[in-house]
């Protein structure tokens, strides 16, 4: 209580400074007068009495000072003083200030950009009402499967959970994206009808209500929408703007989806882009009751094993998460007892929601950790730079600081003063960095969107909200303060060390011997160079990999092979039949050399476990597997080396035969004849092995991705009742081929045409892979250039300082007859020693890093980012090391030459 009163009184005094001073003055004078009166009474004369009074009183100045201390907010005034002084000194050294602020802006900006992205993906809550109480249900499998299926539940499970719990205020279900045919009239009355493929989600009737999302126009679902004659759908804002130009009159328009009429009743708000773990924004939401029409083929309501729905729950206000989680777990497991599941669920947890559904995915977390380490390193390099510059400045200010310490300032006070300067620099740099990051995250997003929205991905619409919010701002602020302490504390402590006499006499430049041996400074330079070297090498390898990726030969025919996709049918059986019809027709076209069904290359991998019995031993592993129809290998241009390919009879009989790649032979049957051998595959990952017989061997190709040749690949025959991707190989002119394919489609079934896409493997999947390589190389190079620039600036600064300290020495040497070349050599070589150490460490570090990456990429489908360049690639390492060395050397030579050009007499006289 007392402290508060004193604080208020102090603030009061602060504003009445003048009058308090005058009052004190008056009081002291009166005190002195009273004292001298007393002395006069004792018999002294007035003059003597006055002097005696002064002596008896003691120091007036001290009394005033103590009183001032008592009535003022000392720390506040000191801070204000420090701030003003810091501003002045920064303004007096514009060169240093600008360089420091720019360096900090880059370092902090990079960190801020990283955090903006992470925030948008993992920290920002969903745009629903009260997002802290909305959770996602996640299940954990006995066999340890990780991935999207952890969020999949079945309709009966949903109903059971909904009806038997008392911890949730609401439970909603949403499906994964479904594709429908839509016929939309362009005008309300009489316009033409346009058919297109749309992507939407099926959701429970309480989806919008329980999530707390209100439509921006119109309404969302009512519970009885399930039973009305023309069911309602809600459009997403991005689809509405894209397709209907934001026309508000679209409400009430009827649309025909999969031959069923639905009405558009509302538009979702702009910020709501869905709550799914899949990142794309759906075009529309429809009620679950329409499942049979919109996603036909299965009956979700009655099949407890069909896991098609994601479940989100809103917790009741007073229920703690643990209790809700325990109840959900018990409910799901109790329900699971009522049917036989293929992979049992061993636990159910509740997860807080964010934009990216699965933030616990170890792959995601590894990428985040790696990126954090990299941007952290860049910031450290920037801080090391500024620390070195501050060391130099501190040495120049030793006189001033020495005098202050001698006059009685405490070391803490002077350190605080110096730190204020660092904090000011850091905050200025941080603000600039914050704006830089806002601008650069926008740029980065534009680039990524350019990659994602290629022709194959069908205009993948992912809306990530990258706008900075309070979290990003706080993070940037915290990083700035941390950086200030990192680069400011050590120089401040060092400069205020004892040794006042030396400082005041400015004997600090005693032939530079004490300073050049400053181990800390050399260590900082070496560390900067190490980081730059590592980043440079990584970027160099990525660039070489990128160049390779642009010219890699896949072994497949990619320019003339087209991926043809269309909505072949609404049920799997229909689709399969339609595909066969289309295939037969296409193969008869003169412009088409061949057509086939099967897995399309570069579009994801399927790697079932494989078991090979050899005598008494068993070989186990994982293999890439694809389905292939009888004309597959010819269509794709994969050469058959031995044995035979599939025949239509194999497909009809569902024969258990397989064609394997060369490397599979080398792996499992080295030195033997594989034809006729048998192996087993676990096709469904459930532990049921199916046996296959080898009937042919094909050449190795790069099927899974562009970066490496498939380690092991097994091709299985297609079955007559399933639908697959359709691949068509053109003969002759590509344009005529496209036209004739379209004509063929039209003649079979004109409704197929609008939803059809016809993209070559080169322009579609391969383009994405190559763009990704380009993006990685670009980002890597950017970071490396940043680190090298910072290191070069740092080296220059340090050398300039070292040389300035040795000016006397250089002057004496020149006067004694040394040539410029000799002096230059001595100075530069000494300065380059830490650089060489840094390069050595950097090479070791980069080699270790790439070796680590290399050994972790043994999985059949994994990508090799380096496109086969060995991790210890000598040209890259040596070339970049030399480059860095030459940059460092030139950064050192410039100040050394400047020092040499000074007249020796001036150098000798100079302090």
């Amino acid at each position, binding site marked *: 209580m007392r402290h508060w*009163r004193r604080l208020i009184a102090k603030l009061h005094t602060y504003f009445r400074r003048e009058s308090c001073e005058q009052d004190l003055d008056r009081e002291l004078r009166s005190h002195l007068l009273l004292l001298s009166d007393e002395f006069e009474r004792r018999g002294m004369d007035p003059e003597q009495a006055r002097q005696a009074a002064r002596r008896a009183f003691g120091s007036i100045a001290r*009394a005033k000072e103590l009183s001032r201390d008592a009535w003022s907010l000392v720390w506040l005034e000191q801070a204000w003083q420090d701030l003003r002084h810091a501003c002045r000194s920064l303004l007096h050294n514009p060169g240093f200030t600008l360089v420091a602020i720019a360096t900090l802006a880059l370092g902090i900006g990079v960190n801020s950009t990283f955090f903006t992205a992470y925030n948008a993906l993992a920290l920002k809550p969903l745009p629903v009402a009260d997002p802290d109480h909305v959770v996602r249900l996640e299940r954990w499998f006995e066999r340890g499967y990780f991935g999207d299926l952890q969020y999949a539940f079945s309709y009966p499970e949903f109903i059971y959970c909904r009806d038997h719990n008392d911890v949730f205020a609401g439970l909603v279900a949403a499906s994964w994206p479904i594709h429908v045919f839509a016929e939309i009239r362009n005008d309300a009355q009489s316009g033409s009808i346009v058919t297109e493929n749309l992507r939407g989600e099926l959701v429970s009737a309480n989806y919008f209500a329980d999530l707390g999302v209100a439509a921006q126009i119109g309404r969302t679902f009512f519970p009885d929408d399930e039973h009305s004659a023309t069911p309602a759908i809600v459009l997403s804002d991005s689809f509405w703007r894209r397709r209907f130009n934001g026309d508000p009159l679209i409400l009430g328009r009827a649309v025909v989806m999969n031959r069923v009429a639905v009405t558009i009743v509302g538009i979702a708000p702009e910020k709501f882009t869905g709550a799914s773990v899949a990142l794309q924004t759906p075009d529309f939401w429809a009620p679950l009751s329409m499942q049979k029409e919109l996603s036909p083929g299965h009956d979700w309501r009655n099949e407890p094993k069909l896991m098609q729905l994601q479940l989100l729950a809103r917790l009741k206000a007073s229920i703690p998460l643990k209790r809700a989680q325990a109840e959900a777990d018990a409910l799901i497991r109790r329900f699971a007892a009522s049917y036989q599941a293929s992979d049992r669920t061993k636990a159910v947890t509740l997860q807080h929601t964010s934009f990216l559904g699965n933030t616990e995915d170890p792959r995601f977390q590894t990428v985040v950790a790696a990126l954090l380490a990299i941007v952290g390193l860049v910031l450290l390099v920037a801080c090391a730079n500024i620390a070195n510059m501050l060391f130099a400045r501190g040495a120049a200010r030793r006189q001033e600081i020495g005098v202050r310490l001698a006059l009685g300032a405490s070391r803490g006070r002077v350190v605080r003063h110096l730190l204020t300067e660092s904090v000011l620099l850091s905050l200025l740099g941080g603000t600039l960095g914050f704006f830089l990051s806002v601008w650069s995250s926008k740029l980065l997003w534009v680039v990524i969107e350019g990659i994602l929205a290629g022709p194959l991905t069908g205009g993948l619409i992912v809306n990530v909200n990258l706008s900075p919010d309070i979290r990003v701002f706080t993070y940037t602020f915290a990083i700035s303060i941390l950086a200030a302490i990192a680069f400011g504390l050590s120089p401040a402590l060092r400069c205020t060390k004892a040794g006042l006499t030396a400082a005041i006499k400015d004997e600090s430049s005693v032939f530079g011997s004490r300073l050049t041996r400053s181990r800390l400074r050399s260590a900082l330079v070496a560390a900067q160079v190490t980081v730059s070297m590592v980043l440079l090498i990584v970027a160099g390898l990525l660039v070489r990999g990128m160049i390779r990726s642009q010219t890699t030969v896949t072994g497949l025919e990619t320019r003339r092979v087209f991926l043809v996709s269309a909505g072949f049918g609404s049920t799997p059986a229909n689709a399969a039949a339609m595909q066969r019809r289309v295939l037969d027709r296409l193969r008869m076209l003169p412009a088409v050399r061949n057509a086939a069904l099967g897995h399309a290359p570069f579009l994801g991998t399927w790697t079932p476990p494989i078991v090979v019995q050899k005598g008494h031993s068993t070989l186990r592993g994982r293999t890439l597997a694809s389905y292939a129809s009888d004309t597959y290998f010819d269509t794709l241009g994969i050469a058959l080396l031995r044995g035979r390919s599939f025949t239509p009879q194999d497909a009809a009989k569902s024969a258990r035969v397989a064609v394997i790649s060369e490397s599979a032979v080398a792996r499992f049957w080295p030195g033997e004849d594989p034809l006729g051998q048998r192996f087993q595959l676990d096709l469904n990952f459930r532990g049921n092995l199916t046996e296959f017989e080898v009937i042919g061997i094909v050449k190795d190709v790069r099927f899974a991705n562009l970066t490496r040749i498939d380690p092991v690949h097994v091709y299985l025959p297609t079955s007559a009742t399933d639908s697959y991707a359709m691949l068509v190989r053109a003969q002759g002119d590509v344009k005529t081929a496209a036209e004739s394919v379209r004509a063929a489609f039209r003649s079979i079934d004109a409704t197929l045409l609008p939803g059809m896409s016809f993209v070559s493997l080169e322009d579609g999947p391969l383009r994405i892979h190559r763009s990704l390589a380009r993006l990685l190389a670009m980002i890597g190079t950017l970071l490396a250039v940043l680190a090298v620039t910072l290191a070069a600036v740092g080296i220059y600064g340090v050398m300039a300082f070292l040389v300035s300290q040795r000016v006397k020495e250089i002057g004496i040497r020149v006067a004694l007859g040394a040539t410029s070349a000799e002096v230059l050599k001595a100075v530069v070589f000494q300065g380059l020693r830490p650089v060489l150490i840094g390069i050595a460490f950097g090479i070791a570090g980069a080699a270790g890093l790439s070796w680590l990456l290399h050994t972790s990429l043994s999985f059949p489908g994994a990508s090799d980012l380096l496109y086969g360049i060995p991790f210890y690639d000598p040209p890259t390492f040596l070339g970049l090391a030399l480059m860095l060395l030459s940059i460092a050397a030139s950064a050192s030579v410039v100040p050394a030459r400047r020092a040499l050009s000074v007249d020796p007499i001036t150098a000798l006289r100079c302090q």
Partner: protein
Amino acid sequence: MSSERRESIRILQGTLDLIVLRTLASMGPQHAYGIATRLQQVSNDSLNLNQGTLYPALVRLGQQGFIKGAWRKTENYREAKYYSITPAGRRALDQETRRWRKLAGLVEQLLATGES
């Protein structure tokens, strides 16, 4: 200067505040010079009080609301700032006195057991 050494006692801030309050409470309103003189008298000059060190104590006490100052004329028609203790000051004085006595008693007890 007499031959006996005058041992000067240094005083801590908080104790000085207590003494000043006590003085004001028993003497009534008094100016700074008066307080200093009184303290010197009572302690037989062994209190090493630089007259100026009173002032910060007076500022502190004033900030906490324990004393109030007002300009008045002395008997010799000199002007001086007279300080008087406030009710809050009296309460604080009681509290601090009790605390001091308890502390002194404790220290005395500890020292006594040490000696024997």
